[in-house]
C-alpha cells in the first residue's frame, strides 16, 4: 500500500481545483473590468451629449438634428452592455457584488439616457420612442416579455428599450418607479403611460401610434432614417 500516492494525488487535485477557481476569478474580473470601462465610456458620452445640449439651448433644433446621429447613438452600446451584464449575471449569480454594482451603474446610465432622449423628443418634436421595461426576479412572464421586446427592437430600430430590474437598489430607480406607479412586473411604460402585465407584440405596437406613421411614410424621421440605413447595410 502506497499511502503517499493518495496524499500526493489529493494535494495535486487540490492545486488543480484551486487553480481552476483562481483562473475563473481572473477571467471574470477581467470581464467585469471591461464592463466597467464600457460603462464609464457610455457615462462620458452621455455627459458630453448633455453638455452639448445645454450649449445648444439657443440654437435651432435643425442644428441638433444634424448632429443627432453622433450625439444620441448610445442605445446600441447600452443594449450591448445589457447583454454582457446579463451573461455575467448567469455566470456569477445575481447576488454577486460586482454584478450588483454593474447593474446599479447601468440602471443610472439608462435613466440618464432616457431623460436626454425625452428632452430631445420634447424640444425638437422628433419621433424618439422610448419603452421603459420594468422586470424582476422570479417573474415567469418577464422572460417572455424580454423576447417580445427583442423582437420589437429588431423590427423598429428607432425604438429604444430601457431595462430596469426593480430589485436594483438605487434611489433614482425608486423615484422612476413611483413616478409611473410601477407596482408589478413585468410593466411597460410607453409614452408616459403604464401597461402592467405581459404585452404581446401586437399590443406593444398598438401603444405606439408612431409605428403607423412609420409604416405609411417611406421617408422616415432623420433619426429613424439614419438607424435604418445602418441596419440595411448589415443586410
Amino acid at each position, binding site marked *: 500500500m502506497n499511502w503517499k500516492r493518495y496524499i500526493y494525488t489529493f494535494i495535486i487535485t487540490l492545486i488543480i481545483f484551486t487553480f*481552476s477557481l483562481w483562473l475563473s476569478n481572473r477571467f471574470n474580473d477581467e470581464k467585469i473590468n*471591461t464592463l466597467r470601462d464600457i460603462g464609464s465610456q457610455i457615462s462620458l458620452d452621455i455627459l458630453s451629449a448633455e453638455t452639448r445640449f445645454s450649449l445648444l439651448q439657443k440654437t435651432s433644433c435643425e442644428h441638433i438634428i444634424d448632429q443627432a446621429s453622433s450625439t444620441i447613438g448610445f442605445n446600441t452600446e447600452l443594449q450591448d452592455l445589457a447583454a454582457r451584464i446579463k451573461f455575467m449575471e448567469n455566470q456569477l449569480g445575481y447576488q454577486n457584488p460586482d454584478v450588483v454594482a454593474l447593474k446599479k451603474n447601468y440602471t443610472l446610465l439608462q435613466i440618464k439616457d432616457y431623460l436626454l432622449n425625452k428632452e430631445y423628443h420634447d424640444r425638437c418634436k422628433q419621433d424618439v420612442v422610448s419603452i421603459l421595461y420594468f422586470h424582476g426576479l422570479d417573474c415567469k412572464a418577464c422572460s417572455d416579455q424580454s423576447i417580445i421586446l427583442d423582437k420589437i427592437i429588431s423590427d423598429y430600430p428607432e425604438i429604444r428599450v430601457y431595462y430596469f430590474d426593480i430589485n436594483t437598489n438605487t434611489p433614482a430607480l425608486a423615484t422612476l418607479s413611483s413616478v409611473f406607479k410601477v407596482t408589478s412586473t413585468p410593466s411597460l411604460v410607453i409614452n408616459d403611460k403604464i401597461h402592467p402585465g405581459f404585452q404581446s407584440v401586437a399590443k406593444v405596437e398598438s401603444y405606439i401610434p408612431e409605428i403607423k406613421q412609420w409604416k405609411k411614410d417611406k421617408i422616415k424621421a432623420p433619426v429613424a432614417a439614419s438607424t435604418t440605413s445602418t441596419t440595411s447595410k448589415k443586410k
Partner: protein
Amino acid sequence: MANAFEIVYAMIMFLAIYVQVFFLLVFFENKQKVSRRIVHVDLPDHQYLSVSFLLPVWNEGTTTRDTIESIFALDYPEEKLHIIAVDDGSTDDSWHIMQQYKNNPRVTLLQKENGGKHTALNFALPHVKTDLVVSFDADTQIMPDALKKAIPHFVHDAQLMALGGTVLIGNPRTYIQKAQEIEYQTFSFTKKMLGFIGGVLVVPGAFSVFRREVFEKIGGYKKAYNLEDAELTMRMHQYGMKIDHCHDAIVKTKGPDTFKRLYKQRLRWSYGFIKNMIDYKKIFLNRKYGNFGLFTLPMSVFTYVLLVFVFMYSLYKVSYGFISYIHKLYLIGFGNFQFGSWDPFFLDAKATTIMSLFIYAAIFAGFLMGRHMSRVTHSNFHNIPYFIIVYGYFAPIWVMKSIYDWIFSQKVTWR
C-alpha cells in the same frame, strides 16, 4: 452564495479530478515499463509453462473453428498448448464443427447440457493438466505473440496468480463498434494503471491467464449474476492473490454490433457489477484489500455516479434549451433569431468548466497512451465522436436501468 447543487457539483468535480490525477501519477511512476522501446527477449522453449485454453461454446460453430485455428497459430511451443472446448448444449451445428478436431491430441472436446458460461468453464476445469489456464471467448481472435508476451510474467513472478490481457475491437464496422474501439483503447490504459497498483477490476473473460492452483484454492466459477469474470476477480482479491494486467498480450473481439446488443451486454455488466459489489461490500474502502478496496471499487462506483450526474445535468440543459426555443417560436414566430457575432467575452469561464476541460484532456491523454501501449497504429480519431455520443448519452441509460433493476431486483438475461 453557493447553493446545494453547486456544492455537490464541486465535490463531483473534485473526485473526478482526483481519479484522473491518480492515474496520471501511476503512469509517471511506471512510465518506463510501458515504453515501446523495451526489447522483448524470448525465453528458451523449455521455460515456457504449459497452457490450456478453456473454450466455452454456445451456438458459435463457425467462429469456434476460427478461434481454435488462431490458437494453433500462436507463436508458442506446440507441445505446451492445449485446448479444452466445451459445447454448452448448443442447438446449432457447433458440436458437429468441433468434431473435426476429435483426433487432435491437443484438443479435448466436451459436451454437456446447457447451463450457462460458468457451468461450461467449471465442466472444463477438472480436465486441466497444465500449469496455466487461459479463459477465452469463442468470438475472440488472439494475436500470435500474445502468449509469449504474457507467460514470462508467470515465469519471473511466482506470486503472480492471474494476468488479464488487453482486449481490443478488431475491424469495427458499425458505429456502435467504432465507439467501442475507442472505449477499449482508452480502458486499456486504465487497466494497465490498475495493474501497476494491484487493483485490477476485472480479469476479462475474453482473455486472461490463471495459475491452475487458483481454482484449486478458491474453487471454480460462480454464476455471479452472469458476470463470472468480475466475481472471480473480486474473490481472488479477497484471498489476497496477485493479479496483473499485460498490456501487450492482445486479443481482438468483435463487440456487439447493434445498439440493442450493446445495451444488453452493458446492462449485464453494470447490473452484475452492482450485485457482485454488494456481495463483496466488505472489500469496499477496506485498506486490508489494498488499492483494490481503496481505489478501484470506489472509483468504479463513482464513475457510475458521475455518468448519471453528467447525463441528468446535460439532459436538463438540453431539454430546457429546447423548450425555450419552442416557446420563443410560439411567442414571436420564425425568422426572428439573431446570432450574435463571436466574442470571447461570452466564453464560459466558470471554475467547473475549466475543471471539466482538465478532465477531458486527461481522458484524452489516457486514450493516446492506451493506443500507444496496445500498439494501435491505424488512425481512428474520427471515431471519437461516436464514442462521446454512445458513452455520454447512452451509457448512463444502462447504468440507471441496472440501478433500477438492482433496486427492484429484476432478472437480466445473459444475451
